[in-house]
């Protein structure tokens, strides 16, 4: 049975303890798609990367908020993670593997690469006013259908 279209939105402070909250929030919402454990873990990893970027880079004074939206349409999940922070100077440079503005903090510079590798598609855009919006898409291959087709 196909899932009903659905939507959720939460706003939380851009602090590191909320990374786990964001992961659990999205994975809890996506359960209605009947995903495999691997699919859920892929999504959790990608969400964690995007929220970590907000926590580490968007707000140098640690005083901002993150908006997390999740939309289900058919078998597809769309996840939006948005901040109103300092933004990214050169988005295509930031998306390159191993690029980091904070190498001294033991940062790997692999955030966007991990998002791209765990999701089907990732878009990174500057907001009109301030900050960045990351939009990620993933198709969930319904577990029950996989069992039926096996």
């Amino acid at each position, binding site marked *: 049975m196909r899932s009903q279209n659905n939507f959720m939105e939460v706003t939380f402070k851009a602090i590191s303890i909320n990374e786990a909250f964001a992961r659990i929030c999205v994975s809890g919402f996506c359960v209605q798609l009947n995903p495999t454990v691997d699919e859920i873990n892929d999504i959790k*990893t990608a969400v964690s*990367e995007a929220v970590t970027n907000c926590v580490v880079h968007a707000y140098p004074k640690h005083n901002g908020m993150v908006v997390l939206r999740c939309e289900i349409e058919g078998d597809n999940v769309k996840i939006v993670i948005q901040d109103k922070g300092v933004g990214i100077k050169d988005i295509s440079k930031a998306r390159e593997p191993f690029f980091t503005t904070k190498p001294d903090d033991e940062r790997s510079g*692999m955030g966007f690469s991990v998002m791209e590798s765990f999701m089907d598609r990732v878009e990174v855009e500057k907001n009109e006013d301030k900050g960045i919006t990351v939009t990620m898409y993933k198709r969930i291959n319904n577990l029950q259908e996989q069992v039926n087709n096996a």
Partner: protein
Amino acid sequence: MQIKSKVYNNTLYVLLCGELDEHSAIHTRITLDNVFAGGDFNQIIIDLSELEFMDSTGIGVLIGRYKKMKDRNIPIYICNPSKQAEKIFKMTGLYDIMPKIV
């Protein structure tokens, strides 16, 4: 994040339990550095079987520890990564410096 460790036959075994992300990274770094500082061992094995979650923050933490141990000529090995951790390790080439053992 809970970190358990023991030395056996000149090997330091480290078990990471919990979640490794930006929130737990500082605690993980400090604890690992303390564990690595003491004891009588000539290699380190990091067991990830109890690691419930890791994102790319984990790569930064592991490479940082690798650099410190390289100065002491002590190799670090990884075992039992999750499917997601394995994917991140392969993407970043981590296994080139911290080989996976079974």
